[in-house]
Structure formats: C-alpha cells, structure tokens
C-alpha cells in the first residue's frame, strides 16, 4: 500500500519558488492500477518522481507499507518513461538485466526470468537485438521487462505509450493488462489519454492544473478482465464523458464551446 499524505512539492526557481504539487493525498492499494490524468504541467510526472524517491517533498509524507520514502531505494519501484530509454549499445537482454547488474546481483540467476518476461511481452527471439533495430512499441516492451525484472513493489509508468500510434497503444494496453494479471503488480499510470486511463484502471485520479491537487478520484465500474469491446460499452462512454467534464473545468470557457 502506498499512502500519499498531504504532499507539497516546490521547485526553487531563480525568481523564488513555485508549487508543483499542493496538498496531494491519495492511497494506492496493493495490486491496484491507478491512473493520473490532468492538464499538462499539473505535476503528474513530479508526483511519480516523489513516489519513487527521486524528488524530495517539502511537506507531507509518502509511505510504502508504513515506511516513509526518503530517497530511491533499490528494487522498490520500476520506472517506465515515455521514451524506452534503452542503452543503444546493449542488446535487449543486456538492457533488461541492467538493474540486476546495478544491484550487484548475479546475472545468471535472472536470465531465465528475463526470458519468461521477454516471452510474456511478445519479444521472443529479439533478446539479442540491439534497440536500434526494434520499433518504438517493441522498445517500450523491453523497457517494461526491465522494470519488472527485479520484482519491484510498484510499477510507475509516465505516459509509457504516449509516443505510439493509436492501434499500437491499444495493443500495448492489452499487453500491460496481461502482464498485470500475471504479476499482480501495483501500477501507477500517468497518461494524457483519458480513455486509456479509463480502460486500464481501477481508479482514475483527476488532477487540477498547477499547482496540482487531486480534483476527484473516479472508480471505474468495468469488470475484469477488460476486453477491447468494453471500450464501446455504455458504461465506458459514460465514464469517459465524466472524466472529460472533470478535465474541461480547467479550459478557458471559450475553448469548451
């Protein structure tokens, strides 16, 4: 369980400080998929970094099963970025095992697990490829395996499919759900795409524009396992419309039309 309690985050700028997050509170349950949506610059990425311990917070606290986060801790969180951030000079297998090397654990113990995960994300046969030879979607799959290889407690994903075309993104959504079903990981998922958020999540957190606060937390009424067809169901459309309404509050009225 991740408890985010009254978190404030400020960035020091040349002309004083600005708040990026103001009084954010949120509890994420074990094995849950929670999406963060909100206007650009509202602090979604910042919140992920605070959870991972990469950014310090000025007020409030973040607890992992009751233990406060005070900096990056080995093996606790798996990060996935919008870009795959693979090291070009390493093969898929070597990229996937990078965290193991950094932790100083024996590589050989993880090769089988790496192969399983590579198969799970549909990269079988590409383990010895260099990233440059893979498509964007395939690179992102490798990045997901890299984040899972060390069994982190939580997967933090920052618009991981934002750079992919719509169809590939849908495939990756299904793939992520399959991975989630198999591994039971807690996932915090940032996206710009409210339909993606609705489709994947148990709950969607809608944030206000800067400084980011939680505007509303919406539970997704769709059953599991999710299927592509659900994207066209009445419940889904109603949910999407509701999320849309919550996001549009921040738009200038003229733009809403």
């Amino acid at each position: 369980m991740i408890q985010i309690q009254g978190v404030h985050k400020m960035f020091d700028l040349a002309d004083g400080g600005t708040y990026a997050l103001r009084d954010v509170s949120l509890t994420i349950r074990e094995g849950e998929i929670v999406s963060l949506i909100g206007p650009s610059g509202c602090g979604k990425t910042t919140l992920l970094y605070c959870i991972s311990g990469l950014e310090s917070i000025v007020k409030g606290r973040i607890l992992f099963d009751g233990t406060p986060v005070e900096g990056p801790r080995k093996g606790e969180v798996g990060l996935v970025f919008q870009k795959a951030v693979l090291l070009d000079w390493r093969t898929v297998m070597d990229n996937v095992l990078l965290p193991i090397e950094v932790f100083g654990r024996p590589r050989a113990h993880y090769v089988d697990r790496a192969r399983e995960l590579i198969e799970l994300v549909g990269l079988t046969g590409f383990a010895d490829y260099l990233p440059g030879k893979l498509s964007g979607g395939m690179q992102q799959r490798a990045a997901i395996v890299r984040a899972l290889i060390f069994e982190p407690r939580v997967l933090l994903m920052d618009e991981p499919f934002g750079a992919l075309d719509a169809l590939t993104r849908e495939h990756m959504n299904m793939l992520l759900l399959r991975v989630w079903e198999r591994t039971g990981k807690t996932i915090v998922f940032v996206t710009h795409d409210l339909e993606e958020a609705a489709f994947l999540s148990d709950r969607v957190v809608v944030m206000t524009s800067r400084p980011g606060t939680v505007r509303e937390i919406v539970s997704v009424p769709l059953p599991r396992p999710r299927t592509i067809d659900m994207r066209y169901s009445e419940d889904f459309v109603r949910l999407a419309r509701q999320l849309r309404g919550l996001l549009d509050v921040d738009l200038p009225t003229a733009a809403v039309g």
Partner: protein
Amino acid sequence: MAALVTWHLASLTTSPLILPGPIPVATQLVRSGSLIMTNLWVTLTEIVLGFVGGSLIGIITGTAIAHSRRLDGILRPYIATSQAVPKAALAPLFVLWLGFGLGPKVTIAALISFFPLLENTIVGLRRVDPDALKLFASLGARPWQVFLKLRLPHGLPYILTGLKVGVVFATVGAVIAEFVTANKGLGALIMQAQGNFDTRLMFAVIIVLTVMGVILYELLQLIERWALRTFNLGEGHIDPTRTEWNP
C-alpha cells in the same frame, strides 16, 4: 592524377626555384631518402609522445570537469582563455624554458591536441539522456556505475572523434615547434631547405609530412571503427563550426 598533371604543367611555366615539377621532386625524395627518414623518426616521436600525453591529460581533465560543476566553474575561464591563445606562438617561449631537445616540441604537440579531447570528453560524458540518469538514480546506482555503464559508453564515440582531430593537431604542433627550434625533425629540414633555396627538398618533405599525417589519421580511423563495432556504439559527433581549437 589530374592534380599531378596540372602540377607538372604549372611547373613548366615557372622557375624550378618557386615550383619544381613532380618528377624532380620525386627524384629528390629518393635521393634524400635516408636524410628524410632520420628526421621523420624525430618528428614522429614528438607527435606520438605529444599526442598520447596531450590526449591522456585532456581525457582525464575532461572526465573530472564533466563530473564536477564546481571544478568546471573554476577551470572554465582559464580553459577558455588558453584556448584563445595561438599555441604555435608559444613555441619560442617553450624553447626558452625547455631547451632545444624533444621537450618544447612534445609540449606544443600535447598542448594543441589537449583541447579537442578535453572538449569532446566533457560533451560526450555530459550529454547523456536525462531520463537515463533518472533511471540509474531510481535503481540506486553509484556514481561509478553511472560512469561505467552510461557515461563512458555514451562518451566513447566523442572521445574517438577527438582523438582523430588530436593526432592531426599534434602533427601541426610538432612541425611548427621544429620551425622555431630548427635543429632536427622534418620541420627543421624544411627550414634548412628553405635556407639553401632547395625548393625540391621542401616539396619532398611536405609530401612526406602529408603522407604521414594521412597514415596517422587513418590509423585512428581504424581504431575508431573497430571500437565502435566492438562495443555497438554509434557515430561520434563534433561540431565542425568550432573555432577555438586553433593550433
């Protein structure tokens, strides 16, 4: 081939003192072979020592600066200033300080090849993807791990490019230093030939220098290709508009 023919035709219309033709120059090359070879070894020694020394110091200093903002802040103004100094103009000074032996020539060659390596090492080690740094940080990576697994592989192509520039610069540096000290080496031989109005010998030496420069460059090019292929690295980059690397 066309260049050779043009050279030959041009030499027919000019005094051999100003522009000797390719055939007399080639004859001279053979006749002065051993004289040229003796001096070639001297120059080559200076180049290699200066290049190896200058690039090593450049890479080490660059690595230190890339890792420390503070060091960067302290050293940067001095580096910027010393880059603006035409290093060749320092040759007489180094002769004064270090005598007429190998010292001043190696120093000049080292000084000139230092800068491209310094600059390329800094850029190569620094310009890594900020997200990759976040990734390493999230894994709790130690600084040496970030260096070995991220910065060095990323910076290596830049450093290799710097080495190619550096070896050419070292050649320029050694020859210019020899102009000033006029004792041994191919640069000195050019000055002597000039004093004797032996234009053919001058041309012969210049050709030898050019061939040597090309061979050194190609050698590093081979090393670069080998390293890039072995370590699966991409191309290095160098900003061709940079002017502060003046010899």
